[in-house]
Structure formats: C-alpha cells, structure tokens
C-alpha cells in the first residue's frame, strides 16, 4: 500500500468517576481485520491524539475477547455492544466510542455494572442446593424446557439491554430486562422452581418487572439473542396469576 490509511476514532473519555466527560480523537494506522479492542491497544501503544498531543492511554475493560464475558461492552456508533466483536472493517468511520453511561463511569470506557449483580442478588438468581448431606441426582427436564433455559442461560450480564432500554435511566429505578430472563431461568429449573414464588415476589418489588414499557429494544440489542421480551411477557402472565391468587387467598 503506497498511501497509509487511518482509522478515525472519536472517543468520549472521562478521567475519573466525578470528572466531566470530554472527547478525544485518534487516527491510528489501518490494519486488516481489527476489532475495537485491537484499535484501543494501538492507542495504548502510542497514546497520541489526532492533534499530536501525548495523552493518557484510553482505559477499557475486556476479558474473553469472544463475546461471552460481557466486560468490554461500550457504545459504538450509537449502539451498545461488545468491543471485541465490533469489527472495524464493518463499522462506519469516524467510529464513535462512548462508555455505557447508564452505569456509573469509572474511567474512560470502564463502567461499574454492580447494579446488575445487586439486582441478581435481589431476585435470588441461584438455586439453593447447599447442604451437609447428599441430595441425590436432580430431576430430569424435557428437551423443550432445556432449549428455553439454554437461551436464557446465555446472559453474560453485559449491560447492553439496560443501555438500550428507554426505561433504564437516572429518573427510574428499573433493574433492567436481563433480570427478568434470569428469574425465568431459575424458576423453570425443577429444583429452582421450589423458590419460584420468592423470586417472583422479588421481581415485583420497586424497579422490577412492571417498569417495562414494551419498547422491545432489549431483545433487539441483546448480543446473545436472548428472548427477553418473551421472558418479560411470561413473567407478566405469572405475575397476573400470582396477583389474583394472593388477593383471593389472604
């Protein structure tokens, strides 16, 4: 190649949790088959912005690099997604990268997703089987059930559905679409189903299921294609039954 090509990145940065965000632009040499992570690594190697100033390298988080851990989620050209599976060759330039600011920003592209893990704890998204004695083998489940649960089990708490949801913002306390899928996952497990009422009750607490406004962005945005809106509507059905059952029996 006689002429050197560049990749133009426009990155929204922030020096610390309480600092003001600002924009830095970078022009990095083009290579074939780069993803956003390798582009950020290029900046790390030579942290000079397009004005020629030496700046602090852009900070980000990543682990698996194969779209299963959810750590490198960020907003790329307006869409929340994983940086590792965002291929530079298929993105329009300049590539605009922002942190998912639905979450508290720690630095540059690093966000704090603790609220998701707190939400999972709140709805008891686990199966309590710990004990001192052998409980024997678990019950079998049907193939249909297994397939449904497999879809739900692929959630990696990446936060994309929260970023995409118009009802997750600083004015609302919605825990996010993902948590509904996780309640379905554990409530459809035969052993987990023993605590299904407990999880459903927790899901109907403040900021729960009812905050869904049916924009259905979550199911469009989810990188794992989890049927979140189906999980939400299923939970709505269970909540309706639960509502009447509880009202009539207390």
């Amino acid at each position, binding site marked *: 190649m006689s002429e050197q090509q560049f990749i133009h990145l426009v990155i929204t940065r922030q020096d610390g949790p309480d600092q003001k965000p600002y924009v830095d632009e970078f022009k990095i040499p083009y290579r074939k088959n780069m993803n956003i992570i390798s582009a950020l690594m290029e900046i790390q190697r030579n942290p000079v912005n397009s004005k020629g100033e030496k700046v602090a390298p852009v900070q980000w988080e990543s682990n698996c690099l194969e779209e299963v851990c959810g750590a490198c989620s960020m907003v790329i050209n*307006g*869409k929340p997604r994983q940086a590792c599976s965002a291929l530079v060759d298929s993105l329009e330039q300049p590539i605009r990268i922002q942190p998912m600011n639905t979450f508290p920003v720690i630095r540059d592209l690093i966000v704090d997703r603790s609220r998701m893990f707190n939400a999972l704890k709140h709805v008891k998204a686990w199966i309590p089987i710990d004990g001192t004695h052998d409980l024997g083998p678990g019950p079998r489940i049907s193939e249909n059930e297994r397939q449904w649960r497999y879809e739900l089990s692929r959630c990696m708490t990446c936060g994309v559905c929260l970023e*995409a949801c*118009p*009802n997750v*913002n600083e*004015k*609302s306390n919605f825990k996010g679409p993902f948590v509904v899928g996780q309640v379905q996952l554990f409530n459809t497990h035969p052993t987990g189903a023993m605590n299904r009422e407990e999880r459903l*009750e927790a899901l*109907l*607490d*403040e*900021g*729960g*299921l*009812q*905050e*869904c*406004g*049916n*924009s*259905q*962005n979550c199911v*469009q*945005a989810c990188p794992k294609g989890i*049927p979140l*809106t*189906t999980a*939400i*509507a*299923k*939970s*709505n*059905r*269970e*909540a*309706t*039954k639960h*509502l009447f059952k509880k009202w009539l029996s207390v």
Partner: protein
Amino acid sequence: MSTQRSFFNRRIHSLLGVIPVGFFLMEHLFTNYYATRGASAFVEKVDGLWSLPFLVVLEIFFIILPLLYHGIYGLYIAFTAKNNTGNFGTFRNWMFVLQRVTGVATLIFVIWHVWQTRVQVALYDLSSEQLAQLMSESVQNPVIFAVYVIGLLCAVFHFSNGMWSFLVSWGITVGPRAQRVSTWVWGIVFLFVSYMGISSLFAFAQSDFIQQLAQY
C-alpha cells in the same frame, strides 16, 4: 406488600386504561357516529344516555376518577422515559415514544374537550339539542375541526396501541408471533375507529346539521 407499590400502581394504571377509560372511549365514539345519521338520531342517543340512572355516580366513578388516575400516573410514566429512537429506530420503539406523546396530547385535548362540552352542559344546563348545536357550530371553525381530528387520532392511537401493550403487560400475548398478530389486529382497530370518529366530525361540521335540529 408495601414494597410492591409501583407494581400495583402500574397494573391499576393499565387496567383502568381499558376498563373503564378505553371502554368509555369506544362507547363515546360509537354514540357520536349516530351523528352521521342526522342530528335527531344523535340527540336521541344522547338523551338515552342522559336518562341512565345514577348518571352522576357513573360519570364520577367510571369516567372522571379512572381518567384522572390514568392521566396523572401516565404523565409520571411518560416523563420517566428517556426516548432513544435516534439509536434504536425500530417499529416498537417508535410505538413506545408515540404512546407517550399521544398520551400527553390526549390528556390536554380531553381536558379542553371536557371544558368545552360537559362543563358547559353543567354550567348552562344545556339540553342535548343545544349541545349538538354547540358542537356543530364549533367544529365548523376549521381550526377547532383540526384540533378535534388531531385529538381524536391521538386518543384512538393511544387506545389501540395501549390495548397491544395491555395484552403484553397482563401476560396474554406472550410470544413474538402472538404479539405480531396483535399489532395487526390493533392496527386495524385504529384505522376503523379513526374512520368512525372522523366521519362523525364531518357530520357535525356540515352546515345543515343545525337546520336538521330546527326541524326536530
């Protein structure tokens, strides 16, 4: 149970939107459609409704209070959303925004409409003929006619799309196929009911509507 207050509020908001507010909207537009058969047919239907026993109780408990709850809680819901159709321009996301926009617009329209009709009836003790005359004269003004068409379309859209989300929120249409069919069904309802409402408005706007009343 106190921790589930917003769940109950949301469910009551959803239920009241259909029963009685949505039901009343349908009844109201159905009655108005009699205007297309002439002023006397319309006045006869209005007199029929006004002769219902416990009318004031019905109006307070089945129209005003549910409407106020749905409207005020709806404003809260509408203004807690952060609309993002710029990044997510999907059909459902647009419906989400339109549901909130038409909800606010309908609330403003309904307040004005109640002032213009029901409050005037109460203040000046109008007869059904006088009410029909008032309506006919005001919609003959093209600006008011346009306001009525917009208000009607907002209300009917909010009802139709609201029915779609009611069916999801109560867990009746669960899967994507059921929800897709539901979109079509409520789309057709929107078109049909809008047609019904607009033809009634055109009937009211005819200059000889009042003359028919004189004969009556």
